[in-house]
C-alpha cells in the first residue's frame, strides 16, 4: 500500500502525498494502536522494489529488510520518549539487488484521534557512509603509518611566526600535554651545537625560500638524547615570498646510531686494512731485500776463487743472517701488539715505569750527560696494558737520546695532562729535530729512517704508534730542525 493510494480527503493532502511519493526518500507511518503500517512509493523504490512488490508489514521490515545488528538501535529510537523527534539513526536495510545499504532514518511521533502514530523517513546514505568508513580507515592507516615512522608534522606561518605542531610531534618531544610552543622553545629542544643549525635553516627558509633536510641531535622532555631528521619546505605566494614553512620531524635514532657505528667500524677497518697492506708490503720488501742479498752473496761466493774475497763474502752472509733475524724479531713485536691487546689492563703508575726504564738505560743517559725531568702529578696513574706503556716510554726515551744534539746537553721532559675525559702524555726534547714538511707522516712509518744514524732501524716509532692506536689513542709530533721535538700522545 502506498500513500498515493490512501484515501486522503482533501486536495492538499493528495498533493502532499504525490510529492512524498516522488522525492528520493522513503516515508513510513506506523500506528501503535492499530499496528497498521504504510510505506510511501519512495520507500519501495529507494530499496529497489516496485511499489507493492513486497508486503508492507512489520514482519517484513524487521525480519527481512533491517539488518539484524541494527534492530536494537532502531527499536531504541522508536521507543525513545525523551527526544521527539528522535535523533536520526543510521541503519542498514537490505536492497532488492545490491545487498545491504546504509540509510539515515528519522523518527517522529505524533498523537491524533486514532491514537499514537510514528512517522519516519529513510534516506540512502550508503555512498557517504562508505566514504566515511573509508576515510576513517584511511585516518587509522595514516595514524598508524605516522606512528610507525615516528614522524610528526609542523607548520610555521611566515607572517606571525606562529608554530603549529601535530600530535605526533608531542610524542617525539615526549611531552604529555599538547602545549603551545614557540619556535625558540622548539629550537631549545635540540642539543646546543645543533641549535644554530636548525635556527639558520628556518631563517633561510623564511628569507630565501631554501628547503632543508637535516639530521640533528635532540633532547626530549624526558631527557632522552635522540637523532631526529628535520625537514622543511617553504610554501611561496605568487610573489615568490615564503608564506609558510611546512615540515616534518622524524625520530631516526636507531637507524642513525646504527649508521654511525657502521661508519666508525668501517673507518676502523679501512684504516686497519690500509695499515695491514702497508705492513705486508714493507715486510715483504724488507725480507726480499735480505734474501736477495743472501742469494747475491752465495752466487758471488761460487763465482770467486780468491780466498780473501770468500772470507769477506762469508762475513757479509753472517751479517745478512743476523739482519734477517732482526727483521723476524720486529715482525714478532708487531704481531705481539695484536695478541697483547687482549691482555688485561691494569692500573699502572707512570713514575714507577719511567724510573724502571731510566735505570735500565742508565749507562746510555750518563754517557750523553742527559738531563731528564718528569712530572706526572696531573695524572699519576692510568689503566693501560703495562707492556705497552713500558714499550712506549722506552721507545720515546731512547729515541730522544739517539737524536740528541751534540752541541748541547740533552734535556728531556716527560709529563702527563688531564683534559676533559682524556689523558695526555707529553714528551719533549731539545734534540736535532726533524723536517716534518719533508717527512711528515712517514715518521711513524715502518723502516723509515731520516738521519744517517747507524742505530736507526725505523721500527721504534712504528711500534709506538701501533701500540697507542691499538688502545684507541693517537700520537702527534711537532718538531723544528736543530731545536727539538715534541710528541703529544692522547692515551685514552
Amino acid at each position, binding site marked *: 500500500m502506498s500513500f498515493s493510494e490512501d484515501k486522503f480527503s482533501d486536495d492538499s493532502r493528495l498533493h502532499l502525498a504525490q510529492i512524498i511519493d516522488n522525492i528520493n526518500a522513503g516515508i513510513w507511518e506506523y500506528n501503535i494502536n492499530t499496528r497498521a503500517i504504510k510505506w510511501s512509493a519512495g520507500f519501495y523504490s529507494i530499496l529497489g522494489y516496485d511499489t507493492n512488490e513486497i508486503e508492507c508489514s512489520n514482519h517484513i521490515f524487521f525480519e527481512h529488510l533491517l539488518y539484524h545488528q541494527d534492530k536494537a538501535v532502531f527499536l531504541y529510537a522508536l521507543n525513545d520518549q525523551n527526544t521527539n523527534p528522535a535523533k536520526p539513526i543510521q541503519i542498514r536495510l537490505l536492497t532488492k539487488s545490491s545487498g545491504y545499504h546504509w540509510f539515515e532514518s528519522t523518527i517522529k511521533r505524533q498523537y491524533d484521534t486514532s491514537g499514537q502514530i510514528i512517522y519516519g523517513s529513510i534516506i540512502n546514505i550508503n555512498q557517504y557512509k562508505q566514504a566515511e568508513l573509508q576515510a576513517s580507515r584511511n585516518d587509522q592507516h595514516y595514524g598508524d603509518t605516522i606512528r610507525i615512522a615516528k614522524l610528526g608534522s609542523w607548520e610555521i606561518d611566515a607572517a606571525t611566526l606562529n608554530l603549529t605542531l601535530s600530535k605526533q610531534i608531542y610524542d617525539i618531544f615526549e611531552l604529555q600535554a599538547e602545549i603551545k610552543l614557540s619556535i625558540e622553545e622548539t629550537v631549545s629542544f635540540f642539543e646546543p651545537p645543533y641549535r644554530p643549525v636548525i635556527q639558520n635553516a628556518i631563517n633561510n627558509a623564511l628569507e630565501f625560500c631554501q628547503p632543508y633536510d637535516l639530521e640533528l641531535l635532540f633532547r626530549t622532555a624526558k631527557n632522552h638524547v635522540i637523532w631526529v631528521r628535520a625537514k622543511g619546505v617553504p610554501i611561496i605566494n605568487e610573489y615568490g615570498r615564503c608564506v609558510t614553512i611546512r615540515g616534518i620531524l622524524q625520530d631516526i635514532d636507531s637507524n642513525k646510531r646504527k649508521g654511525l657505528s657502521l661508519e666508525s667500524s668501517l673507518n676502523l677497518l679501512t684504516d686497519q686494512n690500509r695499515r695491514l697492506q702497508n705492513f705486508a708490503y714493507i715486510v715483504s720488501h724488507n725480507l*726480499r731485500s735480505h734474501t*736477495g*742479498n743472501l742469494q747475491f752473496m752465495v752466487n*758471488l761466493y761460487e763465482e*770467486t776463487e780468491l780466498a780473501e774475497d770468500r772470507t769477506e763474502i762469508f762475513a757479509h752472509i753472517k751479517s745478512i743472517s743476523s739482519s734477517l733475524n732482526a727483521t723476524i724479531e720486529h715482525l714478532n713485536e708487531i704481531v705481539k701488539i695484536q695478541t697483547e691487546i687482549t691482555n688485561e689492563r691494569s692500573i699502572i703508575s707512570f713514575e714507577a715505569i719511567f724510573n724502571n726504564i731510566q735505570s735500565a738505560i742508565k749507562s746510555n743517559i750518563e754517557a750523553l750527560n742527559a738531563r731528564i725531568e718528569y712530572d706526572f702529578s696531573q695524572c699519576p696513574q692510568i689503566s693501560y696494558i703495562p707492556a705497552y706503556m713500558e714499550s712506549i716510554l722506552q721507545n720515546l726515551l731512547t729515541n730522544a737520546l739517539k737524536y740528541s744534539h751534540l752541541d748541547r746537553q740533552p734535556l728531556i721532559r716527560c709529563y702527563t695532562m688531564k683534559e676533559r675525559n682524556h689523558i695526555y702524555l707529553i714528551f719533549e726534547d731539545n734534540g736535532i729535530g726533524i723536517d716534518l714538511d719533508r717527512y711528515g707522516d712517514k715518521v711513524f712509518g715502518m723502516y723509515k729512517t731520516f*738521519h744517517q744514524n747507524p742505530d736507526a732501524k725505523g721500527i721504534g716509532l712504528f711500534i709506538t704508534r701501533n701500540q697507542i692506536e691499538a688502545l684507541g689513542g693517537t700520537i702527534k709530533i711537532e718538531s723544528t730542525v736543530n731545536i727539538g721535538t715534541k710528541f703529544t700522545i692522547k692515551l685514552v
Partner: protein
Amino acid sequence: MIIPAPAVNAYIIDNNKIYVYGFKKLLSIKDLSNQVTHFNNGSEAIAHLRDPDNAQNLPDIIFLDLSMPVMDGWEFMKEFEEIKSQLGKKISVYILSSSIDSHDIDRAKNIPSISDYIFKPVDVQRLEEIFKDLRGIARQ
C-alpha cells in the same frame, strides 16, 4: 781485430753496504767495470755531480736505489732532472731496487731520464747487455 773496451764509469747510489760490495764485486768479476763510485744517498751523489772539480770525470751510468735516508731515489731524480742539461754528458740512469710495487715501477716509467728498472739482487745477463750497449754508444 780486438778493440779494447773503453772503461765504463759507473755510480752506485745505495745505502745498503752489503749490496754495494756485491755489486762492485760482480762488475769486477764479470769484467764490466772497475770504476764504480759509491754514494750512500742521493744528496751525496748530487753534490758530487755539481762539483766543477768532477766535471771531467762524470759517470756514463748511474745505478740508483729508491729507498734511502736523507735523500731517496725520487728526490735524487728531481734534482738530477734540473742539473742534467748543464752536465754536458749523457748519463743513463737505471733504478736498482728490491721494490716490486707497481706504483714505484710506473712512477719510474714516467720519468724520461730513467732508462730502465732493474730488480735486486741483479740479473747478470741484463747487466752485461746494459754495459755492451753503453760501450756501443761510446764507440760511435
